[in-house]
């Protein structure tokens, strides 16, 4: 059985290999000078920029950046190496994602959002700071049943928590006809696991915009996200090495991961928590992230929360 650290390293290696391939192919196809950028952001590749202080403008620089990422992939058996490997995984995901946007492409379509522009963050930032949005849930994979998945999403939504979705849970919401969208604070990001970077990007830009973290100060960045961005990850089984590596990145930023995968995943107090019962994920996650919500339960037949404020009621 591989240790947790080996799984993170192997997941990171897999993503790195993939990223290298994709960048090389893009260079072959478009040439080194081809511009790369995300739409609607002043922070270049926000994650890479925040961690290294360097902006990336074209494929040549992206390839160089990959070399920098490689240096984060140290392989000692210590948590720092695992954290950095997790961060490296996230940066690779950002590289893969940005290539999707080459030539102003729109790689994501309804209901998925993919990359979120700066205005969305500025809009969400204030309620995040005031506590109106008490937390950010990142739900990854497919729930055991669509009902359970939607119930989980709804439970967070009713608490005013911002919910982001990656992978099978998006289909499950659609299947159940559950309304999603930034206006109701349930944001499907994308079906690929790499699309999770778009919520990481939100947390990181929050640190740059509101936390005044200097780009390149990775330590300050991680402290800010740990102390100030109340995010957590809910990852459904099965967790493959890539997801485990992404999880390490989340934990590095201070975000606990809650999963129902109890095979080959050793729990880590306050960081990687195994909760077989998905119905308890809400309570488990809030406790893990020290999110305390004072709820006055108004006994009404519909859900009630600030998240529904932007909801659009269509005719029919």
């Amino acid at each position, binding site marked *: *059985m591989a*240790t*947790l*650290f080996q799984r993170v390293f192997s997941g990171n290696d897999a993503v790195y290999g993939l990223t290298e391939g994709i960048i090389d192919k893009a260079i072959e196809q478009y040439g080194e000078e081809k511009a790369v950028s995300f739409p609607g952001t002043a922070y270049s590749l926000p994650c890479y920029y925040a961690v290294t202080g360097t902006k990336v403008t074209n494929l040549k620089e992206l390839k160089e950046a990959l070399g920098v990422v490689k240096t984060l992939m140290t392989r000692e*058996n*210590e*948590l*720092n190496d*695992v*954290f950095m490997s997790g961060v490296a995984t996230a940066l690779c995901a950002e590289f893969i994602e940005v290539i999707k946007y080459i030539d102003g492409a729109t790689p994501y379509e309804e209901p998925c959002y993919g990359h979120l522009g700066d205005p969305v963050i500025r809009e969400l930032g204030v309620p995040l700071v005031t506590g109106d949005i008490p937390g950010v849930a990142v739900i990854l994979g497919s729930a055991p049943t669509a009902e359970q998945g939607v119930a989980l999403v709804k439970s967070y939504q009713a608490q005013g928590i911002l919910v982001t979705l990656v992978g099978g849970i998006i289909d499950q919401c659609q299947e159940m006809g559950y309304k999603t969208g930034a206006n109701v604070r349930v944001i499907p990001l994308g079906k690929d696991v790499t699309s999770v970077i778009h919520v990481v990007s939100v947390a990181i830009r929050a640190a740059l915009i509101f936390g005044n973290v200097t780009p390149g100060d990775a330590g300050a960045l991680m402290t800010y996200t740990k102390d100030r961005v109340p995010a957590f990850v809910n990852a459904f089984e099965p967790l493959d090495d890539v997801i485990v590596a992404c999880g390490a990145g989340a934990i590095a930023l201070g975000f606990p991961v*809650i999963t129902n995968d109890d095979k080959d995943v*050793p*729990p*880590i*107090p*306050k*960081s*990687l*928590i*195994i*909760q077989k019962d998905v119905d*308890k994920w809400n*309570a*488990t996650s809030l*406790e*893990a992230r020290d999110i305390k919500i004072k709820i006055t339960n108004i006994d009404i037949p519909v859900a009630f929360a600030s998240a529904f404020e932007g909801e659009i009621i269509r005719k029919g």
Partner: protein
Amino acid sequence: MSDFKLTTIDEFDAATERLLETGRKVGADSWQLRVKNQTPHCKFGEQGICCRICSMGPCRITPKAPRGICGCDADGIAGRNFLRFVAGGAATHSDHGREICHTLSTVSRDGNYKVKDPEKLLRIAKEWGVETEGKDIYDLAHEMAELALMEYGKPHGVQRWLSRAPKHTQEIWHREEIEPRAIDREVSTAMHMTHMGNSSKAEALVRQSLRTGMSDGWGGSMCGTEFSDVMFGTPKPVDTEANLGVMKEDHVNIIVHGHDPSLSEMICEYAEDPEMVALAKSLGAKGINVAGVCCTSNEVAMRRGIPMAGNFLQQENVVLTGACEAIVVDVQCIFPALGPLSKCFHTKFITTSPIAQMPDSDFIRFNARTAGENAKKIVRTAVENYVNRKPELVHIPQLKQKATVGYSVEAIIKQLDKVANSQAEPTGTTKPLIDCITSGVLRGVVAMVGCNNPRVRPDSAHVELMKKLIKHDILLILSGCSAQAAARAGLMDKRAKDLCGAGLKRVCELADIPPVLHMGSCVDISRMVVLASQIAKDSGLNISQLPIVGCAPEWMSEKAVSIGNYVVATGIDTYLGVAPQVTGGPKVTELLTGGIRDWVEAAYTVETDIEKLGDQMIERIEEKRRALGI
């Protein structure tokens, strides 16, 4: 950013050097000088091959004289000397434990000593199969005291505390015949075996060394710790300060030094007595300041947050400040040098125990039954001495650090509960710690203990090893003078987390602990073997499989060797920075550093290069991890 900074060994040394200047001014002797006078040491003694247990000798082993007059060879002599060394240590801890049990038999609702932790008493009673239902807690305390005292001399059976160990460990002890019977019996057997014309076989002597050590750790010391908790409260996290800077120039400074908390607890009580405080003020002092040296300091720091002035090799420095009104001592590790030294200053050197009587001291006999009046008299003597201070000799080095201490097993488990998710995980276990170790966030645990020894630059091995280990995500549990070295350096300040690897740092932040945990005095190393047992039970592993090692980098006393023996016999590899005096006996040396592994699944490693000692501990921990596939 925080302005936190460790105090360096250089700063320690500079402070000492400044105090020695005062000493030279008043013509004081010092251990530094006496070390010079004793160097070089006798090689026969150093190697353990000088025998003086009968009057045919002294004999010594040389290539030309490979046997003593009785025919005993080098291994016989080294083994016997080692066993006597262990017996000395075990007797010391055990007698300390016995005193505590006697004190327990004096507890009463309105007496000097009370039951402060009735829950713990009930827990132990249950463990020992004593009926508690409907019993007055004080009657129960007296009954338990009697039972505990019987552990010292019962004719049949083995130590009750052994049942706390995992089954596998108990089986080893039984199989290897190292289960301690009555505590005193093992010391007596050791003395018997080492008499002229008894055991001279290395295996037999080493085996009895282990059993004698066991009678300490799983007998006498455990009695001391457990019943001290019952009477004085089970330690929980408390903030305090450490190093000489805790002494106050405008206060009456009373230093408690020694081991038994029965004395120091009472001194602390009376130092707060309004009558005594008023007396101090009437004599021009701002108040009474109690600080500690050595293990009695650890005891009152753990339970009351009383500041720690220093460890073993600081004891003379305390007097050299010229601001010590009284150094009040009971037993063990007290330099007789304090007598003549205190005569160079106004300091009263107050001995209190018939066990430790010294020339040039004021003997105020301390007794559990008259503890209150004894303590009051001692405090009064100190306070009245304030007027005799010689201001021109006063210099208190302004070095001190904050420390959070008080990590008993109970407190550690309570702290771990805070990081357990109540929705998903059990509480009241060591599981969060096991999870951290299994996942690799923590690589392992090192129990660092032991003394100072002039053979090592004071505290340098303790502090350097700790810095190295925490950087490598290894959690440290500490006791004794090792713990005080950490506290004085600043490693028990929670801000020291920034010196850790990412894993330990995260653990410190989430569990709100410093990276090195003070578990108490030297008898409290019994807490460590209980903790190891608990971890083994909660994880389903054997103690010897856990990535845990013990270390005594600057050990000096017989007690330390007794401790080493019970730690090894419990299945925990133990690393020594000072060589035991057995190197002249090849078989004995081989057994201790290898052979006993076949018996108890652990052994000693001796390495005087401290850097290498640290590397070897890390490597051993990683080796254990690999064996577990974690």
